């Protein structure tokens, strides 16, 4: 009937530990406030040390009980326990010693200082157990963390290489990374919630307080799988609903591994899984849209000057140094205005000059913008003469020439452009003529029509 008393008392440990800290700290402050030969604080110091010592003993007992009844491993708590007991004994000793004195000696001050250090260290060890060892490190700036020798990259979860994934070991390279990302923060060798450790295979086999979690070959009997697919509201659902939830592909991979027997031997290539299942985890070497060369960021002031002259001028994104400029509210832009763009020569990657006053002369200026990737010259005086000057803009990918006078012959001059991917020539002479051959880039000529159908007019 009174079985619950010990575990309950154990759970009071996180509250009780603050009592000795308060009492002892108060006593220690009084010790340091006392001047030589003075004895007016003596009674208070005695009381503070006595109460602190008693509270420290209670904390140690409750701490031990908590260790006994909850899923903590001895390795993770032992030093915290030893130091806690030492703190309790040491404060008793100081209480005993002060009873002999009439005033505070310097040596006593030193010992009280040691007690303070002891208490602080004990508390810190305790904090590491509840909050994790990196609790105080995490808020620091990344550079400081690196300086202190901590890895700043969080657990990224499952990643599968595009080539050679068949050779991966199903458990070690697939299942374990998923468990590491989603389960290990509560189920590891140090912190065993439900007495379950999922940080490595042998520990996983042992199961937790509700028994085994893995029944090889039978996912429906393995709580390692079934708990993942319980409704989120169910108390037994894992991970807890406020934590990151597993994606359906991750659940499927775990299920499949269990149905294969749940061993450490099998290879991913022999598991007979559909490659689609792995697709979300494959790290593709995505070729970035904008150039990969590093450029310095444009000073805010320079951007503001551009904005005040009427340009739309913004970075491509908050994290990017590439600049996007549009003359959407500046149709007066002409061949004479190019020098305004000088401050962003290097960084300009997206330029929209549609509906401005520019003519073929402007093509000469474009050479000065080596990183231009998207160029829109719709509805301008571009005739197509001298279009080959764009060959020097090697990073150019998308070129818009809608509603200009460009012809297919002009476009021929771009045939050997190294990077050009798409050219839009809707409503130009080039869109009407017969296409002689394929271009190296995708040429969008438009002029789409929708046929008239009988059903267009039938009213039911």
């Amino acid at each position: 009937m009174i079985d619950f008393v010990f575990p309950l008392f154990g759970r009071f440990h996180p509250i009780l530990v603050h009592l000795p800290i308060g009492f002892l700290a108060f006593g220690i402050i009084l010790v340091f406030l006392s001047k030589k030969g003075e004895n007016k604080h003596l009674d208070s110091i005695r009381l503070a040390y006595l109460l602190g010592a008693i509270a420290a003993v209670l904390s140690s007992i409750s701490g031990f009980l908590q260790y006994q009844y909850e899923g903590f491993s001895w390795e993770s708590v032992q030093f915290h326990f030893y130091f806690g007991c030492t703190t309790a004994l040491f404060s008793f000793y100081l209480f005993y010693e002060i009873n002999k004195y009439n005033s505070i000696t310097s040596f006593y001050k030193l010992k009280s200082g040691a007690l303070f250090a002891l208490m602080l260290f004990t508390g810190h060890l305790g904090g590491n157990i509840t909050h994790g060892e990196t609790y105080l490190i995490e808020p620091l700036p990344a550079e400081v963390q690196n300086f202190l020798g901590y890895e700043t990259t969080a657990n990224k979860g499952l990643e599968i290489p595009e080539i050679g994934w068949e050779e991966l070991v199903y458990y070690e390279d697939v299942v374990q990374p998923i468990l590491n990302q989603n389960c290990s923060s509560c189920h590891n060798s140090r912190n065993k919630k439900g007495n379950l450790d999922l940080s490595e295979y042998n520990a996983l086999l042992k199961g937790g307080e509700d028994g085994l979690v893995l029944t090889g070959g039978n996912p429906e009997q393995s709580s390692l799988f079934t708990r993942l697919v319980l409704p989120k509201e169910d108390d037994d659902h894992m991970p807890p609903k406020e934590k990151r939830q597993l994606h359906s592909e991750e659940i499927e991979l775990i299920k499949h591994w269990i149905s294969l027997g749940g061993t450490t031997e099998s290879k991913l290539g022999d598991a007979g899984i559909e490659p689609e299942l792995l697709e979300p985890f494959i790290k593709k070497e995505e070729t970035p849209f904008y150039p990969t060369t590093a450029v310095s960021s444009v000073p805010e002031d320079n951007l503001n000057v551009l904005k005040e002259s009427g340009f739309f001028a913004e970075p491509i994104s908050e994290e990017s140094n590439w600049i996007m400029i549009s003359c959407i509210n500046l149709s007066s832009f002409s061949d004479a205005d190019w020098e305004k763009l000088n401050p962003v020569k290097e960084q300009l990657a997206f330029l929209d000059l549609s509906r401005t006053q520019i003519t073929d002369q402007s093509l000469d200026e474009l050479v000065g913008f080596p990183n231009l990737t998207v160029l829109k010259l719709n509805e301008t005086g571009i005739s197509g003469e001298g279009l080959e000057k764009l060959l020097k803009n090697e990073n150019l990918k998308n070129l818009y020439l809608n509603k200009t006078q460009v012809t297919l012959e002009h476009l021929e001059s771009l045939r050997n452009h190294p990077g050009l991917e798409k050219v839009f020539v809707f409503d130009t002479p080039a869109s009407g003529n017969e296409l002689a051959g394929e271009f190296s880039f995708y040429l969008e000529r438009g002029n789409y029509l929708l046929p008239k159908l009988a059903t267009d007019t039938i009213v039911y």
Partner: protein
Amino acid sequence: MKHLDKLIQELSQQQLEKKTRRHFLMDCVSKMGGLALAPLMFGCGLDSKPKGLELSQRDLNPLAPLPPPFRGKAKSIIYLHMAGAPSQLELFDYKPELAKYHNQPCPESLLEGKTFAFIRGVPNLLGPQANFTQKGESGAWVSDFLPHFSQVIDDVAFLKAVHTDQFNHGPAQLFMQTGSPRLGRPSLGSWVTYGLGTENQNLPGFVVLTSGGKTPDAGKSVWGSGFLPSVYQGVQCRSKGDPVLYLQDPDGMSRDMKKNLISAINDVNKEEFNQYGDPEILARINQYEMAYRMQIEVPEVMDINDEPEYIHELYGTQPGKESFANNCLLARKLVEKGVRVVQLYDWGWDSHGTDHDGSVDMGLRNKCREIDRPMTALLLDLKQRGLLEDTLVVWGGEFGRTPMQENREGKQQSFLGRDHHGDAFTMWMAGGGIKKGASYGITDDFGFSGIDERVSVHDIHATILHLMGFDHEKFTYDFQGRPFRLTDVEGELIRKIIA
């Protein structure tokens, strides 16, 4: 620190709002003495500036453009909302099994625990009322209700197992557009405009156009700004006649005179703002300025008469009339001119079978004819101008329709109709960042529920925000003491339809 500032601002705003005349008088009594004493004791005057926080550039011009957190694949959105909820079973979700069970009683197992808006008792199943064929290289099934659209489906990604938990129009439309079935949240377009501002300073960032004779059941809240400053709400343009009223200055009013007038009004408003610090006054100032600037651009951009004849033929537009086709053409023009979000609502998709217009075999065909050519034309027109590279087009209703025939009040109806149904319905997306020809989601043999690759409304919002360059989990606005998100606490990216 930014969060804290916002909270303090909100708190002081609320305190100011709660001050009544009675409080004021009480304050007068108690503070008068203090007022007299103050100079005596401290020898300083009262601070004439309003307490509060410094105004940022963003406060003064809330529609100023901002870069997205990461590179968005789309710059603009055109959202085509079919208000009333079109039947997925007559358009995209081909269910030959359902045809075999046509007119047979619905199995009890499907009805257990389900709530329907109008279906009572055990209804009969209703087979598809359209003929389906596989089209394009992707081989997607499309019905003969959409003959034009079936030519462009290789540019489109289908979501075939979308689900919602709302089965009435108003709440479901709110859910689809604001992420919550209850009033008070900002719409998708407001979030995007808040996050990115407007590219064209002479046009609003978020424009709404309606067709089909009625506005959505949920009212203007579907494009409302919720707790965001009201300057981010959608600007609804009239669908017939002048899209914006009083654009032309009256005779004798010159542009300069107008400018003086506006700046005089704004000076008074600024004075008012300095005194009371209500952010809505800033919104008002901005709206005056925006209206003045809109006079330059709107007459041109909102006039479809200038478009060449072949464009009118492509869209099937009839200038001067209210039509979905006109709105589609306007949507392209607006996006071309740098408007962030264009939201089209077309009313009349609620095919219950209570009358001819609401029948899935006849009325629905007529509705489909109204949108088939325009929306196909919109995709083609965006494509030929290269606008589809960075414009995201979204099509869908607020929910789907049942595989059962509606039996309102337990009676057989004279027309074939389907009831509201949120378990599984079809939407599609195209353009900026969308994988062409993709299809995601599988429904059961009756098209009743999604059995794989289901997506929620929050998932769709998460995906749209992602394509615009936002992480939906980090894009928040602090209100009433906590950060709010469009996707609340849910939403996962639909990675398989992202290119």
